[in-house]
Structures are given as structure tokens and as C-alpha cells.
């Protein structure tokens, strides 16, 4: 209930209220005019957002000119720990199709992805794989090891899932997608053959693959290697002190000469392992850097799925005493692999 003449304080307050209302109205008017998705002149490309760079690579291979793919996690980024940013959310809500891995690889994004699926096209490409071909998680009863891309044969299933998702999003480009997918799957199968041949040359007694975390179980199953990760399947689990001692004993017992660091994980644990083995008089060296949860730098050969696996296979073979071409399957690996 106001009393008489408005004083200075209430007049100032009134001024600010009106100014803010005007400003809000102006902002609303302007933003209402903006298009929800940025339109392009000419035939519109399908906007696809992929979480990992491996999926993005598959989407580009299958989609070709029809799609514009944007990935959330670039080289060197760990998907187990990744939390979405506001920019990511904006990109995903504006996309025509969102592709993610699933199987709890992007553990921090699970809830968000499920919610997003209610409003937009969201496909978990690895979850379409038949469950009997998946490896069970060591620690969680009804979960699976998500690192399926380490086995090219398994990855062909994911490429097929990507193809199906793209077809569902743009049915009139079905022929293009099917052709591209078939071509890419053939490349991946050639990679699988190369891997099998090359890794066969590694002697039985050196088939121990020791890495920073348990990303290589599918690789181990496919090519007959015993796979030991210092951390568990997710990099979010801390390696206990006891684990290092356990692994040092293993390295000494089995006379393992080389261990591997990963591009997206800190190498401290690996170096501690090497020091521990040295204290017991056993020399272990770093066999090389592997691409585990992320691919190589953009624009390089290793920045593609085929290149990533090619690099891994060739590096492992060289380090553990097998024979492989110096520059990999297609002679395209950078020197020093």
C-alpha cells in the first residue's frame, strides 16, 4: 500500500524493473527468430553427433557426403570419465541423430543419454551387438566390457548398427549408406586378417599384454593374448597398491620384457610398475604407446579406426618379438611405431 508521493528509492526500483522487462522482451524477440538448427543452402546434410571418435569415424565412413559428423571426445580424451558440457548438450539437442557407444563406456553420460532418447533420435550402437558375443565385466554381474572396438570382427557389427541408424534417419539415402558400409566393413575385415596373421608371429611365451587399464580384453580373446590392465575396465577405478606388487611378481615370473602406455590414460602406474620390477632386478621397457579409448591426432592415419588398430597391432608385434611390416598394413603408419 503506497503512501503519497513516490520517493527516490521506489522510483529507482521502478525504473530498473521496467528496464529489465524491456530487455527480456527484446532478447526473447530476437532469439525466437533464430532457427533451431543452422540451415544450409543446397541439399541439407544430416547432422550427426557422435560421442567417441571411433564412432564418428564409422559414421563418416558410412555416411560419406550425406552427413556432417561432429564428435564430442577428441584424441587423448578418456570416455570413462567424460562429463558433458553445455556446448555438448546444445550440439546434441540440435543434431538430427546422436550416436553413442553404450555398454557403460560413457559412464557419466548414461542418464543424460537415456533422457535425450525420449526427445530425439539417439542410438547406442554397441548395444545392438548380440550379448552372447560380449565379454562379461569383471566386477559388475550384469554388465559387459565395452571395449568392443579392439576386435575388428566385433566392430563390423557396430558399423552395421551405424548404417542402420543412418538409414532410419534418412531413408532415401539407403543405397549410399549400404554401399559405403559394405566397403568399410570389407576394410575392417582386411584389418582383422592382417591382425591375425601378424600377431601369430609373436612367440607363445611373450603373449602378455600389460597396459594401463583393462581395455584390451576383446583383443586378447581374438588373438590369443593374456591381457593384464593395471586399472580395471574403467579408468575411474583406482589401482590399489596391492595390484602393483601383484603385477610386478607376474612380470618377473613370466619374464615379460615390455609393457605399454596408453594415449588417454596417465602413465604413472606403468612407470611405477617398471621401477618395481627394476627393484627386483628385472628390466622392463615401455613397448610403445597404444590407442585404447581414443584414436590418434586428427588428420593423421592413426586418427582413423583402421589406422588406430593398425598402429596397435604393429606396435605390439614389434615390442613382443614378432615380425610385422615396419609401417603397418598399408605402409601408412608414422615412423617409429
Amino acid at each position: 500500500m503506497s503512501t503519497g508521493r513516490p520517493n527516490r528509492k521506489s522510483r529507482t526500483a521502478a525504473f530498473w524493473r521496467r528496464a529489465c522487462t524491456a530487455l527480456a522482451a527484446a532478447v526473447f524477440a530476437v532469439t525466437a527468430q533464430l532457427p533451431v538448427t543452422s540451415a544450409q543452402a543446397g541439399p541439407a546434410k544430416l547432422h550427426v553427433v557422435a560421442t567417441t571418435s571411433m564412432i564418428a569415424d564409422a559414421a563418416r565412413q558410412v555416411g560419406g557426403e550425406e552427413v556432417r559428423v561432429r564428435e564430442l571426445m577428441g584424441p587423448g580424451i578418456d570416455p570413462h570419465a567424460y562429463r558433458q558440457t553445455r556446448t555438448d548438450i546444445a550440439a546434441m539437442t540440435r543434431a538430427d541423430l546422436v550416436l553413442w557407444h553404450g555398454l557403460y563406456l560413457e559412464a557419466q553420460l548414461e542418464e543424460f543419454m537415456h533422457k535425450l532418447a525420449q526427445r530425439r533420435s539417439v542410438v547406442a550402437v554397441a548395444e545392438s551387438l548380440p550379448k552372447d558375443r560380449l565379454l562379461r565385466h569383471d566386477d559388475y554381474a550384469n554388465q559387459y566390457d565395452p571395449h568392443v572396438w579392439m576386435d575388428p570382427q566385433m566392430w563390423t557389427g557396430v558399423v552395421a548398427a551405424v548404417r542402420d541408424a543412418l538409414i532410419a534417419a534418412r531413408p532415401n539415402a539407403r543405397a549410399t549408406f549400404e554401399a559405403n558400409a559394405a566397403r568399410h566393413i570389407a576394410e575392417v575385415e582386411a584389418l582383422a586378417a592382417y591382425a591375425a596373421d601378424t600377431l601369430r608371429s609373436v612367440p607363445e611365451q611373450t603373449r602378455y599384454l600389460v597396459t594401463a587399464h583393462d581395455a584390451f580384453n576383446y583383443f586378447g580373446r581374438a588373438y590369443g593374448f593374456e591381457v593384464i590392465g593395471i586399472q580395471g575396465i574403467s579408468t575411474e577405478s583406482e589401482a590399489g597398491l596391492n595390484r602393483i606388487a601383484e603385477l610386478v611378481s607376474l612380470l618377473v615370473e613370466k619374464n615379460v620384457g615390455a609393457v605399454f602406455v596408453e594415449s588417454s590414460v596417465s602413465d604413472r602406474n606403468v612407470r611405477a610398475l617398471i621401477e618395481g620390477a627394476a627393484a627386483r632386478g628385472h628390466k622392463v621397457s615401455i613397448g610403445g604407446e597404444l590407442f585404447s579409448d581414443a584414436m590418434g591426432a586428427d588428420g593423421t592415419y592413426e586418427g582413423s579406426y583402421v589406422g588406430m588398430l593398425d598402429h596397435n597391432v604393429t606396435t605390439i608385434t614389434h615390442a613382443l618379438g614378432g615380425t610385422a611390416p615396419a609401417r603397418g598394413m598399408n605402409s601408412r603408419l608414422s615412423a617409429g611405431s
Partner: protein
Amino acid sequence: MFETLLDAFLFRAGYNAALVTVGTTLLGIAAGSTGTFIFLRKRALISDAVAHATLPGVGIAFMVLVALGGDGRNLPALLAGSALSAWLGLLAVQWISRRTRLAEDAAIGAVLSVFFGGGIVLLTVIQTMTTGRRAGLEEFLLGATAGMLFHDAVFIAAAGLLVLTLVIALRRAMTLVAFDPGFATSVGISVARTDLAMMALTMAVTVVGLKLVGLILIVAMLIIPPVAARFWSDSTNSVVWIAGLIGGTSGFLGAALSASAPDLPTGPIIVLVCFALFAVSITFAPQRGLFAAMLRYRAFHRHVHRRQGLLALARGEEILDPVTVSVLRKAGLVRRDGVATEAGRAQAARILRDERRWDIARQIHRDEAVINRQDILRPIEDVLTRDEIAEIDRRIGPPEAVPS
């Protein structure tokens, strides 16, 4: 499992475990002794704010290193960044509590949350940077001992010894400032500079402990040992070294335990061991522990009955309470039939005089909480000085004997 535990205690559980155990033991000793002065100076919460304020410094140091072309894993640089932002956090707390009307705890809460939140934002930004290997910055939150390397251990040992040396050198000044800052100023000690030294030592301990127990838990290593040590001693110097001992033991046992079984995180286990030592202290410490208090209560109970019984004897009254009679009999002060013995009469006379003195003392010291709390439990000679007792005796006259 016990064999592996024993191996761990004897430094036989492997090189890596031994390295970590040495590091955490030294950290525990340094943290416990430094923490005693923070606890005495009532600055425990500030040390927590300072620890949380290290996070943005770590993030910024990482980003600077990467911008300069490195890979961001340079530990001394990261720790230097953490120390710098911790220092800024401390200055912020002091500035806010001095210049604004906010109380110190509000200032601490504000600084702690803002700096820590800022640090988390930086970590989220860093995860999107394509710099190749992660520096493992999240490890600074709760520590990660599995990856401890030899040069890490050397750094911790050197820093720990430096901190201990400074604590020993400055203990007298810090004790004086904590007890009576006014007096300290009057004998020429600079309170501001001593407090600065104390916070610098806290920061050193925090930075050293970042990789072992993490910034969230380091405050526990600073504060729990002195709190536990307080139960064992009433002398500051003793509290300092007992706290160091408790801290070092926690570090040693915690690391050994975490090395003996799979999947045990070292930092949290150390803190749990520390808390267990605190629980033991609060329960079993002689004189100040709960158990001792319970025994004292039982003794008090007996004492009350004894006193009441003897007073009744002195005044020639009948003793009605059977418990009282039994207590007196067990002490040999009355015979089976309830008649007082020789010793009983002597004691009764003493107690009567004591009671009279206490009556006067209570009148004189009417407002003294100390006197009212203790009057039944102790004879007056233990509580008042000779001249005070002489004053009372003047008023009540000479002692009287008890008739048989």
C-alpha cells in the same frame, strides 16, 4: 592374508609398497606435529579451506604447462601452482574476515567452496583438451599411491624433514602465540609472522600430501592426531610429539594395510586408521579417557559413601545405608557391629575438619565453578594453597577429636 599383512609391515611387500609406506609415514609425522599448532591456535577449519583452495592452482598450472608446449605432467610445477592458489585462498579468508562484517567461519566457507568449485570447473575444461595423456589431475582429490615413483618419494622425504626441522625450531614461538598472543607480543614475538610461518608449514604439508592422501583428506591428517594426542598429555611438547607419533603410525599402518589386500585405496585407509587411534585414545587414555572416567566414577561412588559414613560417625549419628556400612567395613573403619575402630575415629575427625574447611571455602569462593565441582572428590589440601587454608583455619579454630 595375515602373511601379506605381516610382509607389508616389515617392508617386504615389494618395492612400490615400501616406497609408499615410507612416504606416508613421513607425511603422517610431519602432518601430526604441524597440525598440533593449528589445533591449539584454533585454525583447523582454515587449514581445510587452504587444502581445498589448492585445486584451481593445479588446473591452471597444467594449462600453463600445456600452453608452453609441455605435456602438463611436471609434478613440481603442478605442486607450485597448488601452493600459490592455496596462498591466495588464505589471503582471501583473512581479507574477508578483516574487511567485511562476515565472521571468520563464513569467510572460510565462502573461500573453500568458491576455490574448490573453480577447481572442478577447470578440471572439466581440461578433460576436453586434446593434449594426449591426461595428467591424472583427479588423483589430487583423494590421492593415488599406486603410481608412486622413486623421485616422488625423495621429494616427500626432503619436504617432510624440512617441515619437521622447522616445527622443532619454531615450537616455542608457536606455543606462546597459541596460548597467549598478548603475552607473546609483549616479549617481542611477532604474532603475525609466527602465524604466517605456521600457515606456510600447513601449506607445505598439504602440498606434500596431495598425491598421497589427496586434498580432501589432508585436513584429517593434520587435525585428528593432535586431538587424539590431547587425551594422553597435558604438556604441549608432549602433545606435539605424540601427535607426530600417531600420525606416523597411521601413515605406516594405513599404507601397509592397503598394500596387503587388493583394491584398497591408501589415503582413506590411512584416515580410518587415524580415526581408530583416536577412538582408542578417547576410550582408554589414562585420566582423560572414557574408561578412566568410568573408573573414577566408581571410585567417586565409594568415596561419597565413605565420607558420609565417617561424617555420621563423627557426629555420633547412626549409619542407615547398608552400602555405606559395607564400604566402611571393607576399609577397616568400623567393626562388624557398626562400632568405629581406632582408625575409623581418626579418619572421622579428619573428615569432620575437612568438611568444616570446605564450608568456609564455599562461602568465600561462592562463584568459583572449580571449587563447586570438586569439593567432595578431593581433600582441601589438594585444591587450595597453604595460605588459603591457613585463612580458613583461622576462622574455624583447632581440630577436634571424635569421641568413641
